[in-house]
């Protein structure tokens, strides 16, 4: 019995999501190997080798794998699966892009965004934006699984796995990477942040979003999130979106500012430990999930809060 975990990494750093996926894979059982593929794989592999419970790290670098495109990752991973009973990958945009391609090639029905491993064929996953929780049993011989990071604790760093080199797949001409435009930020990454300050449509403009939300986030050392409405209105970049189709977060503290609380938003943050809602509409659904609700004008209350903590 062996499980392959596909590591998530960027700019030469291993993402914390990988540690969480290793925890989920360990619950599945058997030997856990981690595949580090793509740009900077060589720099990332030693960090992956330190994750507790990992047997070995497979490292693959090369031009075709540079941006971990789904086409290249499929070509790399599918042949490897002869030696594994399951592949686990974080339910990030990278993981979601790659995993179904591998599943289809293996003729396997993928299990998306699992939150619990019951046994080697039974898994729990949210459906309907988290408004229902489904326990499902797979009859496929191999399992292809994406993992919701917030549902599993991160594995430790006391491992000492060996690192093996893999050859990159041959070039294909059907797709190529052109460019990327990444939001530069010194803040913690949303899905890994301990504290999040999120803004909604009530902020009214991109300038007000910056003026009100950022100082509070700075003071708290928090990541910044946004509701879909705020992103759609252009107040915040798409990468900030928390919700059913955006990022799923579960920080220690989530402060929702001027967010009404559509079910699609609640789906992304209701597992946060403490939820604070600041909204002038006392009927807003966000108050139904908030531990502490403050009915107030956010333009007055948030600067006051920023000053008081």
């Amino acid at each position, binding site marked *: 019995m062996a499980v392959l975990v596909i590591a998530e990494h*960027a700019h030469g750093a291993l993402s914390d999501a990988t540690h969480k996926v290793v925890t989920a894979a360990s619950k599945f059982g058997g030997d856990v190997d981690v595949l580090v593929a793509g740009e900077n794989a060589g720099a990332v592999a030693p960090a992956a080798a330190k994750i507790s419970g990992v047997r070995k790290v497979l490292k693959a670098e090369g031009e075709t794998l540079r941006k971990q*495109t*789904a086409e290249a990752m499929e070509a790399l991973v599918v042949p490897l699966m002869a030696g594994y009973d399951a592949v686990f990958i974080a339910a990030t*945009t*990278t993981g*979601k*892009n*790659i995993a*179904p*391609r*591998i*599943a*289809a090639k293996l*003729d396997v*029905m*993928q*299990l*998306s965004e699992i939150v619990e491993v019951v046994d080697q064929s*039974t898994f729990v996953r*949210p*459906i*309907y934006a988290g*408004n*229902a*929780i*489904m326990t*499902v*049993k797979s009859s496929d011989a191999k399992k292809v699984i994406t993992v919701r990071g917030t549902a599993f604790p991160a594995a430790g760093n006391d491992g000492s796995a060996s690192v093996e080199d893999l050859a990159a797949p041959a070039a294909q*001409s*059907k*797709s*190529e*990477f*052109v460019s990327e*435009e*990444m*939001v530069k930020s010194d803040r913690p990454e949303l*899905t890994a942040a301990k504290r999040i300050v999120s803004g909604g449509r009530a902020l009214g403009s991109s300038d007000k979003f910056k003026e009100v939300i950022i100082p509070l986030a700075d003071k*708290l050392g928090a990541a910044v999130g946004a509701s879909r409405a705020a*992103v*759609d209105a252009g107040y915040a*970049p*798409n*990468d900030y979106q928390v919700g*059913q*189709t955006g990022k799923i977060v579960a920080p*220690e*503290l989530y402060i929702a500012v001027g967010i009404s609380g559509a079910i699609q938003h609640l789906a992304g943050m*209701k597992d946060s430990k403490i*939820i604070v809602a600041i909204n002038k509409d*006392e009927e807003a659904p966000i*108050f139904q999930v908030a*531990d*502490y*609700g*403050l009915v*107030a004008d956010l333009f007055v209350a948030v600067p006051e*809060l920023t000053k*008081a*903590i």
Partner: protein
Amino acid sequence: MKVLVPVKRVIDYNVKVRVKPDQTGVDLANVKMSMNPFDEISVEEAVRMKEAGIATEVVVVSIGPQQAQETIRTALAMGADRGILIKTDAMVEPLAVAKLLAKVVADEKPDLVLLGKQAIDDDSNQTGQMLAALLDWPQGTFAYKIEKDGDALKVTREVDGGLQTVKLQTPAVVTVDLRLNEPRYASLPNIMKAKKKEISEKSPADYGVDITPRLTVVKVTEPAARSGGVKVEDVAALVAKLKTAGAV
């Protein structure tokens, strides 16, 4: 360029989902059903491509019960040219959907399959990627912008951390994200016109695809309820609560 747009009939996104007391699933009886919101975006994009002279024909396909025909009609009213209904009352998993779509692609020979990135019922986010793999086509998932670039397509994708642009040789599969466009409402004359558009009817057996599920639902339950909290009077009271809880 011929565009194939798969659409799914799902619970309307405004409906509060109720889990059945016997834990076999969610209650779909007498619940408002609509086109999956992401699929509306893909229909809209295909129709805009036609209006811009990039697409020559937009064919809509849906897999589902007889009522899925209404979903196809909605797409036709938005401007799609014709529809295909693959009729089944069975639950069809993404892998089987992808296999059926691969057969439709073999018949229809589109240059682009444009579909929603996920359906809001099972939240799987799999079908487009699976279809691309089965066809050995390139894929552009979570599209934020789609541009024609000679014979290729440039797709800007919403990814964690920002935006990424890839260039795909056609034929290709593209799945759409929320901000690609804002779908139109069909006008009354277009709804009337859509009634005359052709919808052909097929069954999974016509395509020789085995749609037997690979997953068995053990149970469906309500999520753990979050206990309602308290309202605080003012910012000072909020800060006091947060300090007591050790949150700040």
